[in-house]
């Protein structure tokens, strides 16, 4: 079976059929001119045949002076597939919002064709450009060419991971802050934290321009920055009526879906009780021409989401209900640094910020990062009576000790 690759790839071939674009076709096309891809096909066919992966843990490989940005990978079938015995991945920091020009893309393609498999992921699920597979000695040269062309690596390991953001103000009428500018600014400000892992574990930042959260930041970022507004939703009554005339059942589909039932529609006029609006976006989503977020805009800062390993998955929770976000973003950066300082000192190895917050309790965590507790941070107050009152009176004294 060692040579399954050589006898063609009957199983993988099945995955060239069908309407959806095929990753197999991509590998095969590259295999015509790249030996790595040829071996990858063989190894993958083997995996399909055996229902078993053939990769081993990666050792510490990377580029000089960086601790992150490269995922080391070795095959456990080195003899059969020598060209991918090493098959390391480079994570290249994408431009904010994943915008490119054709030239920029070609530059990357040319570099990667010369130095690696020519295979990529556009993009990895943290957002990086993933250059999929090369040998250890190609890492430095690839990096040199990338930087020469204005690209740099993204994060991996226990560092700040590549921040990402939604398309935001570049192409969305609902962006409540400049997601692209902030993301780029944070990435540039924290280059050292991005490239040189010095944290207890990874730290991810994702910026969504509004509560629709188009980069899933509430579920996938240690710090979730989600745009919102404080004032009234702007209503164009004529457009509301137009939407109704066009067949939208405003009563059932809009009012009925409002989480706080704070919209009323009498067939002519739409009234919103903005005091009770929780900025969920639904009515705006449904009538983009008629409704718009207010003008007093900023973001809610949430903390702590992550995948389940190992204490169970977490969603981010509110740390700052509303923060104005204007360059140079001092308030936000101070907050981030206070969090990193405390986490860096008190976080256990492989403990994410969300897990730390849970282990020591949100109350203590807030004290440590010097943020006042407010009810906006909780869904509801405690239900259990196990309160750690921190001082008590002694017989002697009459005031708190």
């Amino acid at each position, binding site marked *: 079976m060692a040579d399954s690759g050589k006898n063609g790839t009957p*199983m*993988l071939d*099945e995955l060239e059929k*069908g*309407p*959806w*674009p*095929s*990753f197999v076709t*991509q590998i095969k096309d590259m295999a015509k001119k790249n030996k790595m891809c040829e071996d990858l096909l063989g190894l*993958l066919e083997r*995996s*399909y045949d055996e*229902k*078993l*992966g053939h*990769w081993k*843990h990666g050792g510490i490989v990377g580029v000089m002076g960086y601790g992150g940005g490269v995922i080391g*990978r070795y095959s456990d079938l080195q003899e059969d597939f020598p060209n991918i015995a090493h098959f390391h991945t480079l994570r290249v*920091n994408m431009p904010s919002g*994943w*915008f*490119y*020009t*054709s030239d*920029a*893309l070609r530059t990357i*393609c040319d570099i990667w064709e010369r130095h690696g498999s*020519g*295979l*990529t*992921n556009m*993009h990895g*699920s943290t957002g990086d450009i993933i250059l999929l*597979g090369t040998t250890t000695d190609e890492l430095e040269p690839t990096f040199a060419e990338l*930087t020469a062309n204005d690209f*740099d690596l993204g994060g991996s390991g226990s560092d700040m991971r590549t921040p*990402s953001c939604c398309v935001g103000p570049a*192409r969305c*009428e609902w962006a409540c802050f400049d997601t*692209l500018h902030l993301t*780029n600014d944070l*990435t540039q400000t924290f*280059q050292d934290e*991005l490239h040189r892992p010095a944290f207890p574990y990874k730290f991810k930042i994702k910026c969504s321009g509004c*509560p*629709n959260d188009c980069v*899933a*930041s*509430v*579920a996938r970022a240690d710090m979730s920055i989600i745009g919102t507004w404080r004032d009234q939703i702007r209503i164009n009554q004529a457009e509301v009526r137009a939407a109704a005339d066009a067949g939208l059942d405003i009563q059932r589909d809009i009012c009925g879906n409002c989480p706080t039932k704070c919209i009323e529609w009498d067939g002519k006029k739409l009234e919103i009780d903005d005091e009770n609006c929780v900025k*969920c*976006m*639904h009515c705006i989503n449904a009538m983009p*021409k008629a409704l718009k977020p207010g003008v007093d805009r900023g973001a809610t800062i949430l903390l702590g989401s992550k*995948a*389940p390993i190992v*204490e*169970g998955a977490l*969603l981010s929770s509110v740390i700052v209900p509303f923060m104005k976000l204007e360059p140079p973003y001092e308030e936000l950066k101070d907050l981030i640094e206070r969090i990193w300082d405390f986490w860096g000192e008190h976080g256990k190895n492989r403990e994410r910020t969300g897990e730390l917050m849970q282990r020591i309790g949100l109350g203590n965590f807030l004290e440590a990062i010097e943020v006042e507790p407010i009810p906006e941070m909780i869904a509801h107050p405690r239900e259990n009576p196990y309160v750690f009152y921190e001082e008590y009176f002694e017989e002697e004294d009459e005031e708190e000790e």
Partner: protein
Amino acid sequence: MATERLTDIGPPNYEKFLPPVIKDNYGKWDYHEIIKPGVMVHVGESGDKLYTVRASSPRLLGVDRIRDFADLADKYCDGFLRFTSRNNVEFLLTDESKIDPLIKDLDKIGHPVGGIGNAISNIVHTQGWVHCHSAATDASGIVKAVMDDLCGYFTGQEVPGKLRIALACCLNMCGAVHCSDIAILGIHRRPPKIVHDNLNKVCEIPNVIASCPTAAIRPTTVEGKSSVDLEEDLCMFCGNCFTVCPSMPMADPLNDGVSIWVGGKVSNARSEPRFSKLAIPFLPNTPPRWPEVVESVRNIVEIWVKHARKYERMGEFIERIGWPRFFKMAGIEFQKEHIDDFKHAGLTYKRSTHLRHQ
């Protein structure tokens, strides 16, 4: 060529890559409309129009295909394009008349257009057998098979709302499947097979022991070598020990497979974000096209398409009809595995008499 070595330069500034129409209307967009499947227009307060054509992508792309995209961008939109947070490709046009020719060219190279608005979009996924050591299943293969089957819902077939599918090939959940309408999750079902003879060389035994959330791992000595052993009954196959120690391999062709989860979301629209919940505890790994997975996903999708109300996400729909009815409709047998037994299990029990009895 720079003489001294460049580091810490960060990514190129996005502004370099923004088309003029975006620079002009940056932050001043007025509204958008969906023109047809996969095509929308954003209209600026200025009246300017930006047409977006969204094309599907396998995410795993060879440089030649990326060059094809670059060429199409040059041909139709002055070289400006972007990728989405779900790995689709978006061409940014100002000339409405170029939309259809572009779509034709995209079809020629096999990239159907769609996924905008109330639709099923691309599947967020991970590495699988293509590149990861931790995988319990492949990623790209299942995604291809499932999207072949659901392609019609990407390219325009009517659906009630957005439906987001994600896949992760192990419990690390790089695909962040924990909050998806439908999640496909690779799972191990057999405890690690400990490789005693090199464990003490390649792993820090204390770390290995500490890595186990259920304290299933204890120190021991095997043929004179210090190693660890395992209380198999305590293992719930999270794979965390393997992540810290290669000598604790989890992968096992007979027992690895896939589980299906439903009802998660991340947007704040209408209801708050929520986790996906277990629908099908186990389906076998059946490469190359995982028919059982494809069938199960389609079944769940079709129930939603048929019965959900306008805008209703999978989880909102199921909560309205109730989980018992969902299991009945989907023909999924309810089992012990569905009942939470982790940390917060008690809070998932039914703590009221709010029950449907018909």
